[in-house]
């Protein structure tokens, strides 16, 4: 398990907000932890794939998409907070994230 420092947490959260703001063409300031991925941002699964790829590259990780998919079966992604929490776990546990749902 990798250590998730406050600095890394802030970095991940910032990366996620930046990404969705750009992809969904909204101001970053309009996004908060309660923002709905579907209703407020009209985001899709392909955006999530890209975010996973970005994260894997940024933190030099080998992440299988199916691991994330199985995690999401138990912990659906509805709000920005769900996404942030999931990426914290991805950073910490990698493909073992399934056991953290």
């Amino acid at each position, binding site marked *: 398990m990798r250590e998730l420092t406050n600095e890394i947490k802030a970095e991940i959260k910032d990366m996620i907000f930046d990404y969705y703001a750009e992809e969904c063409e909204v101001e970053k300031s309009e996004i908060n932890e309660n923002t709905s991925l579907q209703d407020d941002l009209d985001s899709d699964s392909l955006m999530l794939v890209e975010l996973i790829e970005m994260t894997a590259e940024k933190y030099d990780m080998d992440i299988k*998409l199916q691991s994330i998919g199985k995690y999401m079966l138990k912990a659906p992604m509805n709000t920005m907070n769900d996404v942030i929490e999931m990426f914290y776990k991805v950073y910490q546990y990698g493909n073992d994230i399934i056991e953290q749902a």
Partner: protein
Amino acid sequence: MYNRAFLFNGIGPKYEKLLAKLTPEMTEQYQAYYSKACEHLGLHKDIEKNHGYDAKIAEWLVPFVCDRVIFEKCIAQGILPDIGVGYSSGIVSATACFGSFPYEAAYDIVKTHRSMLIALDEQQVKLDTGIIVGFSYDDLLALLRSQFSEEELVIGSSNSSFHAMISGKAPAVEKAIELCTNEGALKAFRLGTGTAFHHEIMKQYSQEYIQYCHNVTYKDPKYPMLSVFDMSILDTAEKVAHENQINVYTQMRWDLALKELEKLGVKEFIDISANGSLSKLSRVKRGCRIYTFEDVCA
């Protein structure tokens, strides 16, 4: 040497979404072409005023006309292709835009799908397609082959390392969606198309389409195309004809086609679709970039 590839999208995106993206100037051009196409096919230019199978044909016509408008916009701005590739019925668009047959032939081809829809309804054949996000081609193939025969279900198109379209008998598609979801797909859903494009079963229902593609006169394309079936270069009338003839019932490898274009030196991929749908499901290596028509028009 190739540097720039034009990517042509097929039938799929909702027509309202395509039209919403066009600029006023392009909308005007679109309306002029669409009216002529409808006149040619005996359809009403207001999609909603068509009924039954005609309504479907009128809808399916929209991406072809959008492609034409966007293609012409690119050419007018001096953005020329070195090569092109079509995704599914995007092959028909590419063929027309690259001058291998007239635009009217593309419209006629859309209309040949009418007899396919009628045959499927009359014989009460239940077919469908679906999208699976989160599996590589090999992983997905292994999973599907463990549960389904090729007669029931195939990967109609492998689009990227994580995105595929499955195609086959409706109950098999439904079961596969559930299976993939349980096995960790990020997203898996039925498209509810009522057809199974890129499955061999479509050959028997698409005889009018195949016959038309055999009979129409082709010219050598102005720009070469790449086959999404065997990744060969299509630079003669004969080769382009063959690509069109086998289109509806042959498995596509969009992922491999893009890789082949990269090998050929392509760095700039221009997504000709109005809503950038190809750029979303495609992946290209670092150093290459997919541009949407909004990038081009900006």
